Every structure is written in C-alpha cells, then in structure tokens.
C-alpha cells in the first residue's frame, strides 16, 4: 500500500523557487491499477520521481509498504527501489548490446541473487510479460518497440516489487502496439494481482486503469473511479 500525505516539492534555482507539487495526498491499495493523468508541466513527472524513490519530497510524508521513505538518503533509496519498485520507462532504457535475458536479470545482479536462480526468475517474468520464448536470446536492439517494452516490463517484474511504476509506457509506440502493452499491464493486474501506477497525459491510455487521478498545477483536481475500464482486444498477448 502506498500513502502520500501532503507532499510538497519545491525546486530552488538560485533565489527562484518553483513550487511543483502543492500538498498532494492520496493512497493506492495493493492490487490497484491507477493512472495518474495530467498535462505536461502539471507535476506528474515529479510525483512519479517521488513515488519511484528517485527523489524525496520537500515536505510531507510518503509511506511505501508500511515504511516512511520520505527522509531516506541516496543509497538507502537505491535499496528501496531495488526491493519495492519496478520501473517501465517511455524509452525502454534497455542495455542495447545485451541479450533479453541479461537485461531482465540486471536488477537481480544488484540484489545479489545467484546465477542459476537469476536465470530462472528472468524466464518466469518474461513469460508473465508475454515475450515469446524464441526472442529471449536476441539482443535487445534487434527487437521491435512493443517487444522491447515487454522486456522492460519483465525487468520491472523480476524482483517481485510492491508496485510497478510506468512512465508513459506507450509514448513511443503506435496505437496498436501501445494497446498490447496496456493489455500486458491489465493482465498482470488481473491475473497476478500486481499494483500498477501508470503515468500518462493521454485520456485514452488512462482509461485502461481502474482509477484515474487527475493532477494539474501540482494539485490533485479529481480522483475518479473508472467504471468503464477499457478492455483491449489482445488478451492472448500475441504481438
């Protein structure tokens, strides 16, 4: 469970202060699929960085899985990211000349998991992310955009995180491939009970979630239950 209490983030450049988040409070339960939606400049990226423990709030409290992480410093945050959070980025961020398996095992290397176990876990999460087995030994730069994003999803899953944080995961993909990726998230949420926080500026993408938090000018303006959750046509996960 994630709890944000009155999170404020202020960036200081010299004497100029930019208030990016103005007291954001919300909570996400385990097993929820939430979309955080807002136009660019709304502060959603900053919120994502705080949720992902890449940054700390100026004031306020952020409780992740029962622990207050708002005051932890650099290396401590790295530990939390490794254990609790799986990232999926817009631009995939895979190691280009490494195999798919190697990319997926990367978080486990830092977690100190032994070699054999690593490979097993990677295969398991590649299956969950729905990447066909014949691609597993390919180099990641030989894959299509949709396939790369599935590798990134598998990498996010591999350390069994409390939350998957997806930052515009469909931003670089065409509509059809984007749907496939969104379907993967839905399936992980439905079938595996994963908590997913999706950050996007597109209404259409946000509608794939169960709940949509609207953010504007650093404040939450609306928190709606998405009754008509969009269902994709790719439930079998073929690409």
């Amino acid at each position, binding site marked *: 469970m994630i709890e944000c209490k009155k999170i404020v983030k202020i960036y200081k450049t010299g004497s100029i202060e930019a208030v990016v988040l103005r007291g954001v409070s919300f909570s996400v339960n385990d097993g929820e699929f939430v979309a955080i939606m807002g136009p660019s400049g709304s502060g959603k990226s900053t919120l994502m960085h705080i949720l992902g423990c*890449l940054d700390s709030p100026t004031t306020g409290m952020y409780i992740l899985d029962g622990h207050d992480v708002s005051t932890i410093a*650099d*290396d401590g945050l790295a*530990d939390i990211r490794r254990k609790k959070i799986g990232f999926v*980025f817009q631009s995939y961020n895979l190691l280009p000349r490494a195999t798919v398996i190697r990319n997926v095992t*990367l978080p486990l290397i*830092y977690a*100190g998991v032994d070699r054999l176990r690593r490979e097993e876990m990677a295969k398991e999460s590649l299956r969950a992310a729905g990447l066909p087995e014949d691609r597993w030994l390919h180099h990641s730069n030989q894959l299509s955009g949709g396939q790369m994003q599935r590798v990134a999803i598998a990498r996010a899953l591999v350390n069994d995180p409390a939350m998957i944080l997806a930052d515009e995961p469909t931003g670089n993909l065409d509509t059809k491939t984007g749907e496939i990726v969104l379907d993967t998230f839905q399936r992980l949420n439905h079938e595996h009970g994963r908590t997913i926080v999706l950050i996007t500026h597109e209404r259409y993408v946000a509608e794939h979630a169960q709940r949509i938090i609207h953010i504007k000018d650093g404040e939450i303006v609306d928190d709606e239950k998405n009754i008509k959750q969009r269902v994709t046509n790719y439930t079998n996960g073929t690409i």
Partner: protein
Amino acid sequence: MNIFDILEETFSAIMVNKARSGLTILGIVIGIGSVIAMISIGQGAQGSIEASIQSIGSNLVLVRPGFQRGAGPVSAGRGSATTLTQADADAIKKEVTLAKAVAPEISRRYQITAKGKNTNTQVTGTVSVYPEVRNIEIDTGSFITDQNIQSLSKVAVLGPTTRDDLFGEWSAPIGETIRINKVDFKVIGITKAKGGSGFGSQDDVVYVPLSTAQRFLAGDTYVTTISVEAESADSMSAIQQQITDLLLARHNIPDSTLADFQVMNQQDIVQTASSITNTFTVLLASIAGISLIVGGIGIMNMMLTTVTERTREIGLRKAIGAKKMDISLQFLAESVMLTFFGGFLGILLGWFLAYVVTVFASIPTSVSLNSILLAFGVSAAIGIVFGYYPARRAAGLNPIDALRYE
C-alpha cells in the same frame, strides 16, 4: 554485486567498443613495453659490467703505489711512486692471515720481437699463483712455476692477442724464442682468451717470472701491483684494513692520509660501476615512464567519454537499485581491466624488444621477475588513478537527470 558479475559487466562493456578499447590500450602497451625494455637493457648492461669486473679475479684486493711526494707541491700522479717492494709482498703473505693468495707483479711496456715481427705490449713479471688470483686459464703449455722464479728462468707465457701479433693466429709457438728488451725468452705457454675487460685487454700481455723481470728487465726490486685474493667476500674489508695497517707500519707513515700506496677492494669497484648503471637504468625507465603517463591520460579520456555516452545506462542502473559503490566499482573495474590488458601485452612487447636489442645490437638484456611485477603493479595503479575520477563522476550522477539525458 559480486566480483564475477562486475568482471562480466566490465568485459562485455569493453568488448562493445573493441576498436576504441584497443587503441586506448595501445598507449599502455607502448608505455609498459618501453619501461620493461629499458629496464632490461639497463640490468643487462649492469650484469655484463659486473661480470667483466669479476673476471679479473674474485674477492680481489689490489695494492698499488700511491703518489710520489717530493719536496715540492707537484704530484707525479697516482701509481707513479716506486714504493712497493718485493719485501712488502712477502710481509703481506706472511702477516695478513685472511689472504688466500698473494701475487706481486711488475708491469711495464716493452718492444717485443720474434722472427722478424714485433709488437709493443705489456710485460708482467709475476709468480705462480697469479693465474689463480686473477682468473687466468692456460690454453696450451704451462704457466710460470716456483722453480722458474728461483732459477731466474728466461721463460714467457703469451696472451692470445700477443701470440696472434707475433706468430699469427691459431699458431702454437711453444718452444719458440721471443726477444724482450734485448733478452731472449722461451715461450712455455699460451693463456686462454678472456676478452676485453673494463681495464684493458688481458689478452695482450706477456707473463714472465717476477725475479727474471726484476733482474733482467727492470733492474730493481720494486713491484707495481700486489694482487691479494681473499678467502671470501666477507673478509675483504678486514683484509683491506690489515694490509693498510701493515704497510703504514712498514713504511713508517703515522697518518693514513699520507699513505704512499692505495688499497682497492674489488667490491668497491663493482659497487661504483653498479651505481653508475643503476642511474642509467633509472634514467631510461623514467623516459619510458613518461609514455606510460600519456597512456594513462588516454585511459582517463576514454573513460570520461564512456561515462558520458552511457549516462542513460547509469541512470537506469541506479533506478533499478545500483548504489553509488556499485557504479563506481564497475567503471573502476573497466579502467583497471583495460590497463591490465595493456600491461600484459606491454610485458610481451617489452620482452620482444629486449630480445630484438640482444640479437641485433648485441647488448645483453635481462627481463627480471621484479620488472614484470613492477609493470603489473604500475598498470593496475594507473587504472585506479586515472579511472577514479571518471568512476566517481559516474557514481555521482543523479538518476533523474541521467535517465533524461539525451
């Protein structure tokens, strides 16, 4: 992250950019290679100089006349005085108990003729233990015996060069007659070639009995050098002291600074020569070391480029849980691996260069284990020193900025 994982990451990162890694390594290869080659040339030279000093005899103490001090301030030069006598040599033999053998000699240059050919060379009058003391071996015939000395025999032993000059190469003139200073000598032996040493060729020489030389050639009983062989290297300085004390007493000289003789220890000569060659080696190695520093800067340059190029990768690694230490170690390992590769290839190159120098320039070289260990140590140190700054820069990147980096 264990060491094996770090090495795997590092190796694959290096292999991604083979050409660049290779060229960067080349700087270290040349640096280490030239250091190894220079040290080996220096050490080889030192070895050959020491061997050549040792070849004049082992554990040798030489006693030679000192300055000729007249009434005025003019010194005729070291070695010019006729102050050492046969009696001094006999006294050393009798009283310096640590001396294993004592060989006085009288050396002067004379014109020598034989069968119409002639040469001007050094004639050394000496005793039967001389070959033992001065490491001289007999090729054919025999050396001067005690019997020859007692009976003032007019016999001569030729060095191989003198033999070549007087009788032609590879001849065996045993029993032939040579004429030194209008006195006829019978040739009884030829010595083996020793090659040139640091103190003139010991092959261009004629040995005659000491007593014969004093009586028929010099006309007095002075000697020019007394060679004393010590039992071991340890007793050399004791012998040196004993001889000094003895001769000061015999010559009635109260102050050792006024001594009319000098006692030289072979060890001192070796040490002096070694210190010269050491300086020479250090000089060569430092010049080569400059190229090593340039190579190190090349490594740093490449690592900085790599860190910039892989900013997003660093951001990702941090996002998925790498700590500062993990990133830092990865990049440090990369530069150390590069310099280690370079060091290894450099040792092979240095070895090859040393070999080439030996074969084509006939300068003796020796690649020692020490210089190899030094090369490995230095290359690892260069990797750490020049990799530290780029690694710290990588580790210090903010993951948010790194992930956004274009």
